[in-house]
């Protein structure tokens, strides 16, 4: 059996809401963490990221100055002097699937929709500590591998052996929407 040695982990919490920061701090300290730095906007978080070199970043999405998505994009700069590989857990009130995709494409490692729970947060932390994914660098993306599962039924081109990319058409909800209007 494994457990996380939280007191060796350094966290950076970024949320403009002081109540949510307090909740996060309480949860992390209860898990056993001793080092949890806090920022209330993306700009301050980026500065603290360079200064404290946290092991894990937990960020909100909607924030003033620049938001959690922009923060993730700034951290995920492959040529930057700082560490572009730190796990980023996005904790947000956004609860739409398209937001998960946008966050994933910005280089976010884990997505956790509010309302927050101790179990949900712990599981995301356990996942980034125990099961880090390789990073992928393309012309338009740098971040954790977005393929989370192996799909044995996949029959399209295999880009990882050099095949051409193919656009897969997704069924749209538009027709359904129009029929409801």
């Amino acid at each position, binding site marked *: *059996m*494994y*457990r*996380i*040695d*939280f007191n*060796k*982990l350094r966290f950076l919490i970024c949320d*403009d809401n002081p*109540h*949510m920061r307090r*909740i996060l701090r*309480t*949860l992390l300290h*209860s*898990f*056993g963490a001793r080092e949890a730095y806090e920022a209330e906007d993306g700009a301050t978080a980026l500065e603290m990221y360079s200064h*404290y*070199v946290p*092991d894990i970043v937990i960020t909100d999405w*909607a924030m*003033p100055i620049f938001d959690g998505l922009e923060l993730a994009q700034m951290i995920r700069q492959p040529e930057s002097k700082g*560490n572009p*590989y730190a796990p980023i857990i996005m904790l*947000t*009130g*956004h*609860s*739409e*699937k*398209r937001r998960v995709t946008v966050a994933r494409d910005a280089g976010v490692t884990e997505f956790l*929709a*509010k*309302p*927050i729970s*101790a*179990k949900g947060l*712990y599981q995301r932390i356990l996942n980034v*500590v*125990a099961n*880090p994914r390789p*990073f*992928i*660098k*393309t*012309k338009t993306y740098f971040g954790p591998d977005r393929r989370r599962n192996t799909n044995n039924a996949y029959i399209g081109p295999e*880009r*990882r*052996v*050099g*095949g051409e*990319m193919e656009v897969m058409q997704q069924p*749209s*909800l*538009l027709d*359904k*929407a*129009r029929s*409801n*209007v």
Partner: protein
Amino acid sequence: MAKEKPGTIQVKSFADHHVITQPNPLRKMLLRVPESDLDDPVGRAEKALAGLSGEFKNWMAIEADRLSAAHAVILRNGFTVDNREELFRAAHDIKGDAATFGFPSAGAAAESLCRIIEHAPDLDQVPPELITHHINAIQAIVRERTKLDTAVMASALSKQLRGITDEFLLKVNRDRPEHLEAILAPSIVPAE
């Protein structure tokens, strides 16, 4: 304060991308322990959160007042980019926090308000009472929570607001497929 840089990085190159693997820098934080030594960090955290719960009503009142203040500015000055953002952030915070604070129906009403702000083509054309009803509902749910019969009423109120909002948004977004798709997409958060 700086820690060591991550370990040696391996890069595998393909036609249009690179796969970068580094030894897990957090591996040393994972300890193998006998089952008898496993503690319960989640249970401990839940207890700590319960210890904070005495403050939740006050926090919720602060959040609701922030929302009302943002709305009051809009009533005085009309919508601007800045005050729209502030109204959205205040509503969005309630949407995310209210269930944790024990006010799930306030969270649902705030979510409905967020949808108006995000998906109405022109906020100046939104019936002002639709927004006002959301603000008043959230304030009422927070204020009246201690009464025994209010949980059911709060839930019914937020559901009704959501129904009216969705009807309005579907109508005004008839010709905006990307918004229609977002409005109709299911939430990834399980319903209460």
